[in-house]
Structure formats: C-alpha cells, structure tokens
C-alpha cells in the first residue's frame, strides 16, 4: 500500500450544499442552453445517441455542431465513471490511489514550460566597501530533451513529489511532431519510478507510447492493472467548445481503458466570467462535457475531472495564478468533483513572478496552502513553475518541494486524545519538579520520532544577505550527480526495438545495434 500524498482530514467546503447543487443545476442547464459547440463529428454522434439536440453550423472554414446535451446523459456518465482510479508506477510503492470518496492529496509537476531558468552564482565587488559578495544570477535556456531528463531525475528525488507531468517543452532540432511523444514519454519513464502523466501531441504516436508502457508494465493486462502512464487531454476550448483533435485522442484513450484527465482551463475575465459563480458554473459544465464524451466512448473508463481555472490580469490579459480568486475557483471545483464522486485534478503553486524570490514565495505559498484544504486529489503545477507557466527553475522546484513538505505537515491531525492528555499531565508534573523546568527531553522524543518539522534547510549564515537561492543551487548540483534510476537494460532494448522514432541518444546503455 502506498503512503504517498497526504490525507486532508477535514476538507474545507467553500460552497454550501445548496450552492453545490445550484452550480450543478446551472452547469447542466448551460450544457443544454446554449449547449456546446463541438468540432468533432464522432463526439457529436456519441451525443446524438443520448437524445441530444444537434444543429450543424459552420465556424469559419470548419464544420461544427451545436449540441444541446440532455442532463440525463451527463448524469449517466457520472454514474459509470469510476470513483477510484490507480495511477501506476515503475515502483509499486509509488502508486497513486485516487479515490473521490476519500480526501488524500498528491502533488506533481507540469506544465510544458518553454524556458529553463538556471541559477548561477556570480561574485561582485562592492563599489563602496570593496568587499566581495556572491549573488545568484538567472540565465534562461530553451527547453530540451536533456533538460527534461535532468528534471525527471530531480523529480524522482523530491520526496514530496508524487507524480510527474513533463515540465519542459523539448525544442531540440531532431524533435518533431512525429517523434515528440515517444521521446518525451521515454525520457520521463526512464528516469522516474513514480507515476507519469502527459498529453500526446500526435494521435499517431499514442499506440507507440502505450506499447512502450506495456513493455515496462509487463504486458497489456499488467498495464491496465498498473498504468505506468496516464494521459491529459485539453478537450475543451473555453468557452464551451469541444476541439476535434483532442476529442479524438480522448475517445482513443477511453477505449484503451487507460486513465485520462479532462483538463479545461478557462480564464476568468476573457474566456469565462471572472466571478465565482460564472467561472465555476462554466468550468464545471466544461469538465462534465469531457467526462460525458469519455464515458460515452467507453463506459467505466477511468476518467479524472480536471479543472484549471485561472484569472486574467487586468492590464495585459495574461494568466494569473497567485491570486485569491484562483483559490476560490479551484477549491470550488474540487468540491464539485467530490459531489460527483469523480477523482479531481487541480492546480497550486504557480508563481506569476518571473524569478524565484519574495513575489514567487508569496504567490506559491497562497495557493499551496489553500488549494489542498479542499482535498482535490491530484495537484499539478506544484514544482518550479514561474512566469505563469512559462518557466521552470530547478532551484525553485527544490524550494517548492520544501514548501509542500510544510503543507503536508500542516495537514497532520492533532494528537489530542484521552491517552495523550494523561501523558501530558505526567510530563508537566515531572518538569515542574526538575531544576530548570524545561521540556527538552519531551521535545527530543518527538524530534527523534520525526514529529517535529525540520525547519528551513536553506538558511544562510550571513546577517545581511538572503542566501536561499545559492544554497538551493548547491543542493541541486549534488542531486544532479546522484545515480539515475534507469529502466533495466533488457527493457530499454525491447523498447528501442519495438518503438519507432526514439532517439538513440536517450538509451542509457548505448546505441542499439
């Protein structure tokens, strides 16, 4: 049994029961009127069988259909959608058990950032005192396969990281749409013994990715029991539009019986209403539409309610993650998923700040603290994301790992009970009759049992300079040198033999003959 993640004993319910029911009713009404605008004919066919009212239209050059989904179709899909889903892992101890009827929360990475932010210490000389000082300097790099491998290797070592979504957009010259999926999934799986989740860019490669996963899991049936890969589909384009290409992927994954996240990410202020009620009603309707397509394609297929609602900046309409509204939206979505008894995929920990520092810490701490209180299941985007989701910084990811450790500790249940209070009376009695009346011995017991939080590990010694980033950088360098947990040689050989398009340089055992 995996003990990953953290249990949130008493989830915070931002919405009352009546509000939850009102949102449910409103979302179902929105799915009828105006309904969804669907660009995918097969999805339209699936909806039609449920009695949906279909009206063909033209959107620019594309065929599209207005689909008025009957509430019964959605309710039926929610009935067949499983409430419990396993995300498999190369190491079974790292499996994630997502149960919509319990309150365990798991933290993971994402998204495909374009930039990798490197921290480099540089020495400066003060003009006034002539003293030398070392400061961290940031350098941006384009994402690459090598950096994705580095990131996966770090993710394996972050003790508070429970699942991996590739967080680097690979931009190597030898990567194209035709070979991207197999290479990024292999790069992830070859460095991690934790669950790997990801999107597929090209539906043609889906079967190759699944073939790779089957080899790793030990066969077709074993992959269904231990799905070492799960998928994400952004099937909805807000507001309320179903995209053709991703719908095709969603249906294909559903029919493979593998777990898939329905991810919808409306922006409050542009592609969704900015207020609580409007955003939640719409994003919930969008998630329900995706779940319905999935279940119509394969009733009982493992599907995850994914809602990533963000707020727009009012000066440039960029996404904003580190604001209170983001917490409002996200926490309400977690509540809706729990109401439907469908596992939830949520978001926390993104810094809108461009670099690590005070702004990033404030933004991350706000959402890292608040969102898990709603017990959403999977929380992605939690490690190293900056500049909205444009940049990944490994040092920031290490700091986030510590912050999540704090959040997990925060969720510990209180130890007040009739046995412990008896012990407290004994201890107080003893200490009051000791020479210095100090509770050091009592603290030591808790310290040694791991019941005391370890404190901030990147505290510098200088009194007039924050050294956090410099110390985090040293730790990241050490982590980069540790042994990589590659797949066994025979597994790699079989994968390289069976899966076309893999780049030989990714094989840790040398080029396959």
């Amino acid at each position, binding site marked *: 049994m995996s003990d990953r993640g953290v249990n949130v004993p008493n989830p915070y319910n931002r919405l009352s029961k009546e509000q939850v029911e009102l949102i449910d009713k409103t979302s179902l009404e929105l799915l009828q009127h105006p309904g969804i605008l669907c660009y995918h004919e097969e999805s339209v066919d699936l909806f039609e069988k449920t009695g949906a009212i279909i009206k063909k239209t033209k959107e620019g050059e594309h065929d599209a259909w207005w689909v008025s989904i009957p509430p019964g179709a959605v309710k039926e899909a929610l009935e067949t959608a499983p409430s419990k889903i396993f995300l498999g892992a190369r190491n079974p101890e790292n499996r994630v058990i997502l149960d919509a009827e319990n309150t365990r929360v798991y933290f993971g990475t994402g998204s495909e950032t374009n930039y990798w932010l490197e921290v480099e210490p540089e020495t400066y000389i003060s003009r006034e005192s002539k003293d030398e000082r070392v400061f961290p300097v940031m350098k941006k790099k384009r994402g690459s396969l090598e950096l994705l491998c580095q990131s996966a290797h770090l993710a394996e070592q972050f003790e508070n990281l429970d699942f991996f979504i590739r967080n680097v957009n690979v931009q190597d010259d030898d990567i194209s749409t035709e070979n991207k999926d197999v290479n990024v999934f292999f790069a992830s799986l070859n460095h991690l013994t934790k669950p790997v989740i990801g999107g597929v860019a090209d539906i043609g490669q889906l079967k190759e990715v699944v073939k790779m996963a089957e080899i790793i899991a030990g066969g077709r049936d074993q992959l269904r029991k231990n799905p070492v890969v799960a998928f994400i589909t952004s099937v909805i384009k807000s507001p309320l539009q179903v995209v053709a290409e991703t719908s095709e992927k969603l249906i294909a994954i559903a029919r493979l019986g593998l777990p898939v996240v329905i991810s919808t990410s409306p922006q409050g202020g542009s592609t969704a209403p900015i207020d609580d009620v409007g955003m939640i009603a719409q994003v919930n309707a969008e998630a329900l539409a995706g779940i319905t397509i999935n279940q119509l394609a394969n009733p009982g297929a493992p599907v995850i309610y994914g809602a990533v609602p963000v707020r727009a900046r009012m000066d440039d309409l960029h996404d904003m993650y580190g604001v209170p509204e983001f917490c409002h939206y996200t926490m309400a979505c977690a509540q809706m998923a729990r109401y439907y008894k469908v596992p939830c995929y949520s978001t926390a920990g993104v810094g809108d700040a461009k670099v690590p520092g005070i702004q990033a810490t404030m933004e991350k701490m706000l959402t890292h603290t608040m969102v898990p209180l709603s017990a959403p299941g999977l929380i992605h985007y939690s490690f190293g994301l900056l500049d909205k989701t444009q940049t990944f910084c490994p040092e920031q990811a290490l700091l986030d790992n510590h912050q999540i450790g704090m959040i997990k500790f925060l969720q510990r249940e209180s130890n007040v009970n009739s046995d412990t209070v008896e012990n407290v009376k004994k201890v107080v009695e003893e200490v009051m009759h000791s020479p*210095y*009346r*100090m509770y*050091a*011995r009592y*603290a*030591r*017991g808790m*310290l*040694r049992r791991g019941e005391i939080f370890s404190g901030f590990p990147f505290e510098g010694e200088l009194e007039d300079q924050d050294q956090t980033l410099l110390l985090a950088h040293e730790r990241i360098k050490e982590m980069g040198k540790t042994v990589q947990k590659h797949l066994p040689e025979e597994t790699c050989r079989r994968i390289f033999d069976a899966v076309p398009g893999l780049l030989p340089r990714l094989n840790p055992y040398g080029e396959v003959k």
Partner: protein
Amino acid sequence: MSKDIVEMIVDNVLQGRRNKDDEGIEDGVVGQPGVAELVEEALETGIEPDRILLKGLSRGMELVGAKYESGEYFIPDMLTAAEAVEAGMKVMEPHLTGQGDNGGKGKIVLATVEKDLHDIGKNLVAIMLKGAGFSVIDLGIDVPAARIVEVAEDEDAQIIGLSALLNTTMKNMEEVVTQLEQKGLRNRVKVLIGGAPTSGDFARQIGADSYGKDAFAAIREAEKLLKAGGDS
C-alpha cells in the same frame, strides 16, 4: 564480550538517559540502567572516580558536542545528555569531595541581572556548562550586582556569567564589572556575558572579558577564559 561499564556510561550520555526509567534515542532501552545506575555500579566495582568522570561522563559529552557540530544532534539532545551527566555527577559528588575537584573544569556563578526576569537562555547555559564539567552556582533571575560579586568572592569562582534579555537591563551588567573592580577582584574573576541584546562590542564597551552568542559559544568562551586565567 559485553561492553566495559565506562563505555556504557558514554553510550547512555549519548542517549541522554539519566536513569533506567528514561527513554533513549534508540527504542527498547527503558528498564536498562541509565547513567546514574551505571556510575553507581562503576564506583562499587572500584573504578577510579577520575576515570568515570573523564572517560565516561566528560567523554560522552565531548561526543555529544561533536554530534551537535556535525548536525546529527540538536539542542534537545544536548540538553538531555547534559541532564544525564548531571545525574551521574550527583552520584559522584561524595566520592569527589576532598579531591579538590568540584566537577572538573572550574566554578562559574551564573545570574540574570537585576530587574530582568528572563531565564531560558541562562538555564540553557547552566545545563550545558554542568554537562561540560563545570561547577555551576546558579543565582537565578533579577539578581543585584552586589549579590553576584559577593557569591563569586565567597565561592572563589573563576568566572561570572551574566544574562539579560532586555536592552533596558543589560546595562546592569556593567555594574557587576565596576563592583569587581572596586573590591579588587577584577583580575581574579572573569566576566562572560550573553543574551539577545548583547554583543561582543557591548562586552568590550562595559569591560567584560568575553561574550557568548549562544550556549555552545558560552562553553567555548568559558574554557578559553579558564585557560587564559591559568596561563597568566
């Protein structure tokens, strides 16, 4: 072969076990003899008190100090170890009388200065000093300068340790130095200060001999002062 009893004393100092009822760092030791019982047994079997003191209690504390320096031990570990040493010293006391040895290293009078009621830092220093083998006379909190100097003179202490937490009371430390001078004791008794608002600069400003930024620094400074006193 079973462990030598002095080695077992060292182990139990490391575990911070005063007696058989104490838990240790490792599980399953409750009921086994702690430092007090082991010291008693060692004395009964005729082991020299000096050997118990130096190779058992002091050696144990040295190892604890090294573990603290390396980051393996924390303050609660140090304090519980020091308590275990103190428990052992209580058993040793009757056997040390007459040998001119009050606990090995030297005698310190400790006090929080007049009008200051804070004692956590001072207590920490007291426990650690005892654990390190010093003989400590702790006068408590809110102690007038005259009383501190009087006890230091009567007890023939080598060091006075002063603590203050308030910037309004720290100036009372200077009065102790002044009174030592007035009584002609300044060359004989060194003054070590500590507490949040104090500093090395402040120590120099009031004519104190040394400043300890924390309990461990206080021990190091006390040892340095004794060594300097002995050398002069």
